[in-house]
């Protein structure tokens, strides 16, 4: 198993390492500085002692000189003094020997002094004591060599003390710099550690954000690469589980949706045959009116009419199911607009006559052919006219107009019926929606006609819309593209043709 500590563990480890590093550096630095101070103090006091002893050696030698001079005059009296001064010199030399420590120069200087002093005793003091005065030049030379040695030792000691102070200073400075460097290093290491920690989170977090955006955008196949500290990799796994479940749900929903579509398609298809047969036989009966009595004829007519309605509903359902399943197909071709409008006008006219309504068909002069499936667009026009016929009151005016608007053909069906409210206009193309207000409630229908009309128009690459002034009437328009080689059709009489409904 890979070592993958949690975010909090990483933070704890980071801080612990940082504090331990800083602690070690600080302790070592302080200890070293303390040691330097102690050593310096030891050295300084030793050198002071040595200087003191050097001065003692000097004074002891002066006493010895004085004693030796006096001995030449009063031998008995000053012999003891001479010996005492020599003893003092020896004691001082011994103590000084202790203070030179490991310093070779100082030890050598002291050695030199002792041997020079010994040479002086042999060459000056002893002859004097024996009563023989040494040669003047010899005495001065020997005395000067001792005095020089004492001065030399004193100078060396001072120099050693200065060196020691300089060493202590430079050691202190170096140690301080080292500690500072170590502290800065520790902080830098901590920064690197923490930025590594942040980086280890950034990449997986970025992937999560990106994944969440894609998922929100509808790409249900989105999965993220799981990684980073435990908390973030857990979040990543949870995200993937969520995406799995979303995708599963979506697939299930699609399956159910498809099942529903298939079901509607199959059921409407299967219903069609028996309805066709019922309608066929009922119509046959109505055509054999002579052989039926009045009631039988009435029954046959009702059966035929109801079968016809049922057939229309089934056809609507089938169209809608096909549209949902993407199986609704159209065969657009260059279609003469006038012929289409007049055919549908003729087909619908009996319904308008029944309600004493006036239907006007008006087609612009020299209108180009429209690129449309004539049966399907005829169906749309018939539906719009049928709605106007059904919803407008008796004696109303209904107009079917076609004109060229830019590079499109616009069809408009308008009436001066009750119209539709703003809320109703928003839903007029919804499935199973039907105008609910007042008197229009009595109107039958599946509420599918306009939904199918919309699908068909859009399948042609066109658009349909409705507008209305409540109480004044409603207008439904749709536009379709002009046929590519859409020359103006010149069938029928040129100019504006208005076919009036028979009154």
């Amino acid at each position, binding site marked *: 198993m890979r070592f993958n500590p949690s975010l909090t563990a990483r933070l704890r480890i980071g801080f612990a390492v940082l504090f331990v590093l800083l602690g070690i550096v600080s302790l070592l630095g302080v200890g070293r500085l303390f040691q330097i101070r102690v050593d310096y103090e030891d050295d300084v006091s030793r050198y002071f002692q040595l200087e003191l002893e050097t001065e003692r050696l000097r004074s002891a030698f002066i006493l010895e000189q004085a004693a030796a001079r006096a001995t030449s005059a009063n031998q008995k009296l000053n012999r003891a003094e001479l010996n005492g001064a020599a003893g003092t010199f020896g004691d001082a030399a011994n103590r000084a020997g202790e203070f030179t420590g490991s310093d070779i120069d100082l030890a050598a200087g002291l050695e030199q002094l002792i041997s020079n002093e010994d040479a002086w005793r042999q060459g000056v003091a002893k002859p004097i004591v024996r009563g023989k005065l040494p040669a003047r030049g010899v005495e001065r030379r020997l005395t000067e060599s001792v005095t020089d040695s004492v001065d030399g030792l004193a100078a060396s000691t001072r120099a050693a003390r200065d060196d020691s102070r300089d060493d202590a200073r430079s050691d202190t400075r170096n140690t301080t710099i080292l500690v500072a460097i170590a502290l800065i290093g520790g902080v830098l290491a901590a920064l690197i550690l923490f930025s590594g920690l942040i980086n280890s989170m950034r990449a997986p977090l970025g992937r999560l954000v990106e994944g969440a955006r894609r998922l929100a955008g509808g790409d249900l196949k989105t999965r993220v690469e799981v990684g980073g500290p435990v908390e973030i990799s857990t979040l990543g796994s949870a995200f993937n589980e969520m995406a799995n479940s979303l995708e599963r749900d979506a697939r299930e929903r699609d399956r159910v949706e498809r099942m529903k579509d298939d079901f509607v398609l199959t059921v409407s*298809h299967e219903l*069609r*045959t*028996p*309805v*066709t*047969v019922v309608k*066929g*036989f009922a*119509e*046959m009966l109505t*055509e*054999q009116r002579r052989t039926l009595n009045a009631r039988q004829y009435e029954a046959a007519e009702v059966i035929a009419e109801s079968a016809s309605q049922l*057939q229309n509903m089934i*056809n609507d359902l089938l169209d809608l199911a*096909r549209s949902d399943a993407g*199986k*609704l*197909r159209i065969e657009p071709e260059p279609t003469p607009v006038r012929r289409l409008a007049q055919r549908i006008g003729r087909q619908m006219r009996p319904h308008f006559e029944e309600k004493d309504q006036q239907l006007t068909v008006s087609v612009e002069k020299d209108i180009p052919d429209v690129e449309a499936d004539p049966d399907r667009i005829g169906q749309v026009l018939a539906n719009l006219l049928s709605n106007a016929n059904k919803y407008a009151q008796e004696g109303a005016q209904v107009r079917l107009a076609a004109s060229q608007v830019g590079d499109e053909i616009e069809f408009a069906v308008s009436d001066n019926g009750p119209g539709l409210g703003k809320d109703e206009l928003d839903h007029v193309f919804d499935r199973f929606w039907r105008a609910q207000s007042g008197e229009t409630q009595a109107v039958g229908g599946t509420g599918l006609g306009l939904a199918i009309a919309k699908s068909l128009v859009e399948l042609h690459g066109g658009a349909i819309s409705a507008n209305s002034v409540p109480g004044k009437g409603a207008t439904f328009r749709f536009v379709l593209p002009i046929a590519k080689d859409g020359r103006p059709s010149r069938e029928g009489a040129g100019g504006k043709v208005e076919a009036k409904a028979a009154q």
Partner: protein
Amino acid sequence: MTRLLVADDSETVLLMLQRRLEMEGYDVVTATDGLEALDRLKEAGPRQPDVILLDAMMPNMSGLEVLEELRNSGSKIPVLMISAHLDAQEPDQMRKLGATYCIPKPFEWDDLLGRIEELAS
């Protein structure tokens, strides 16, 4: 008298077509599938029908197969194909096989009668 051969696998549809077409004055022979339709044509001998109405989808032998068989054997009798799936690519296929006309199901009587009259003449 114009003779028609009508083939449809739904007996009620077949009966309706037969009665209605008889009412219009046609001599109607019926078949419930493609094989039966071919049998009827053989039985008819020299009294071959003037127009054949075929449902495109039938068990045993479909209308399309009957059409193919007929055209392969050199028959030139006009065939009116009735299909419930005209929204598919079938019309092209049917015309390629030699259907004289295709009509969608459910049909309008006027449309159907008009076509038959046209083909019979």
